[in-house]
């Protein structure tokens, strides 16, 4: 989906001629395992959308818009939504109040911020890809995809 924006380095799915997503959801699993030590659809920072009929699946991840509208809309920016020196917007969950404005501001459909509205207020947080900030091996989903169909572009 072309939004006419420019993007920073982000996780992207390779075309099936290079490698077909096996639809195993390992990327989602690994994502929430390395970030939170659990497996949970509410905690994954990227999403596998499954197509029931074609059985060809699409991986959606934050593309790190250089103008970061999600960051701009966060009422707690600096405490919840933060920017790395090279412009990667990430969420410090300890400061997040779960208002969902970042999710609303995301220019993509589906939004690349995982926000479970039905979660209880006390635990409701937004979550997005942070490129596995500080992880020497880089994004864990890319490292562990069994068919190497995820790359950083």
């Amino acid at each position, binding site marked *: 989906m072309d939004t006419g924006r420019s993007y920073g380095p982000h996780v992207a799915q*390779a075309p*099936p*001629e*290079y*490698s*077909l997503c*096996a*639809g*195993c*959801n*390992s990327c989602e*699993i*690994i994502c929430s*395992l*390395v970030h*939170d*030590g*659990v*497996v*949970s*659809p*509410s*905690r994954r920072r990227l*999403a596998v*959308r*499954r197509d*029931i*009929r*074609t*059985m*060809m699946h699409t991986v959606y991840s934050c593309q790190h818009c250089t103008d970061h509208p999600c960051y701009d809309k966060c009422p707690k920016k600096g405490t919840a939504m933060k920017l790395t020196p090279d412009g990667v917007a990430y969420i410090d969950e300890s400061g997040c109040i779960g208002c969902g404005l970042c999710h609303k501001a995301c220019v993509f459909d*589906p939004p690349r911020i995982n926000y*479970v509205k*039905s*979660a209880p207020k006390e635990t409701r947080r937004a979550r997005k890809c942070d490129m596995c900030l500080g992880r020497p091996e880089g994004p864990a989903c890319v490292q*562990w*995809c*069994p*068919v*190497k*169909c995820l790359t950083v572009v």
Partner: protein
Amino acid sequence: MYGYAGKIARINLTDRTVTQIPTSKYVPENIGGRGVCNRIFWDEMRPGIGALEPGNMLIYMTGATTGTGIPTGGRSVFTGISPNSFPEQYAWSGIGGMVGAELKFAGWDGFIIEGRADSRVYIYIEDDRIEFLDASPLWGLLVHPCQRKLEELHGDGVQSMVIGPAGENLMRNASITTSNDNVAAKSGFGAVFGSKNLKAITIRGTGDVRPYDIEKIFDLRLKMGSPYMRPSPLHREATHGMDGNEIPVEGGWLRGQVACSHGCNQHCNRLMIDMKSAFGDERINQVEKCVGIFAYGFQEDCSWTPIQNYETERNHFLPCKMLSREEPEPDTGDPHFSELFTPVRGDVTNYWKPDFDKGSVMMDMCNEYGIDKWDVIVWYMTWLSMAKKEGLLDDLDFGMEVDVESEAFVRHFLDMITYRRGKYGSIFAEGMARAIRKLGKEKYGDTIYRGRYSQMTGERIDVPVSLETAWGHSYHWQGRGFEATINKPGWIATSLELMNSSRDVQTVAHHHEKFENYLEYKDDPCHSPLLVEGVAFDENKAEIKDSVTCCDWQSPDLYWPDMEAEMFTAATGIPMTAAQLSEAAERSRLLFRAILIRDFGRCRDMEVGAIFPTMQYPDPFGQTVGWDEWNDLVDIYYKRRGYDIKTGVPTRPTLEKYGLGDVASALGCAAN
């Protein structure tokens, strides 16, 4: 609790109530999956209930590894009284997909479905909330449209298990389908859904599954199924099929590989892209695994290479590498290399000529109607082919000339049986075992087909027109029928496994044995405690796979015996050894056997009577088994298992050894 979600839902369709059972009532003693199902069924059911009666209970369980990222843990299992077993018996059916993990994210390890709804319903589970919703908008829908509709109703990301028209119409081999065309098919539980007025179960879970040891999970991901982690591009294949059934496909066909279940690090299912559909002009994608390849052409049976069953330390690999064509290079320096890798060519069967589009239509109809493909390809269609050639069908009016090579006939026949159209539709919807008896087994089942030839001896192989083996199932790696080309020690083992079961068991207990053991008993398999030990090992591993849970295509690894125990401990933090898992498997098998004895009259005479005749037809080498040698083998097996030799009932000391004194009393086992 690490690994487990912590509770099981009891869902009563009759009064539309839901209650909770703590999973800790059953675990860790019964591990999870099938082990827990067997315990629940034993505790709660009684004899005299029919598979399609409201009293039948369908139990669904995940394992501690489900939803943890431990490869193959996404598999899960249904158990209940199977309408497809003949006679009806307690059985199980495994299923992959994402649905088990989703259920755990919703906070449930499994559910028990009881009763019968007074109108058509589907169940919607969203975290703690379980609702009974009106299935009128879904009833009558094919499998994929039904899955789509549920996404429309409940949003992207829900996971569903659904039945198609076959299940609605109580076809005894109806399947339950979930994502990536994963099915629970073998036991006909789709018909149990139908009998309960239940069209689907849709789940959305937003919670967490917390595994105990994340570092270990990464280790397991690396080690299980190694080597892996390389691109898996779409391939254009010039031909389809194997072993004499190859079809050149004009313009080629596009093959991808997909995973079957949540978190698996393999991609053993073939995705066939842009295939002919049975329903409209749109091209479709379909998944092929194992038996599907014979839908397209079946002139020759599957070949057999000993490495499929017998392994050495230098040469053993996972079956999941086969369909993705990623087998490691064999080690030619292995002193047994040539014995292990010399293929035995399958019998010439002359069932149907290769036809890519017709095969695709057959597959699509099975997928959309929700019918067990195995029964269609291996049994209905082969029977139609053989019975026609033997002139048996002249008096049966199917409303169309029988011709399994005609797409129009395949469509007509599958429509007829799914919707129970006409006299024969209803007869065949009862499954082949029952249909053949209704028509008259002597003529329609036992007539010898004279068109099958061994490629090993050049001789005609006289097997009957109906490829029926024990328990209302068709032959599977049993020396006759489909995948017949296994040698005698091999089919002796698989037949013993089938005898102790209530359905085809080669889907989860594919026989694996060390080649060195095979060399010990190959000349006299029926008198070998070593062979029996191998059978007990594979049976126990099957129980473990369906309980931990993990996949038949990755387990067992004979040279990594602790794999399943390591998976379990990584998920739960509960220390576990291979020996302890084996003990749990013995307990689970004893419960399974106790259920068969208490509720379905299982005894030695019954099971020997069911299996022995199936081995009286010649294998591709002309071999059969004698009454005395088979019974000698059964004696050795019963002794190994701790059963009474005369009756086949587990003895009290055996049951007590595994903490099942209550079962011994219920079975009336004498104290000794």
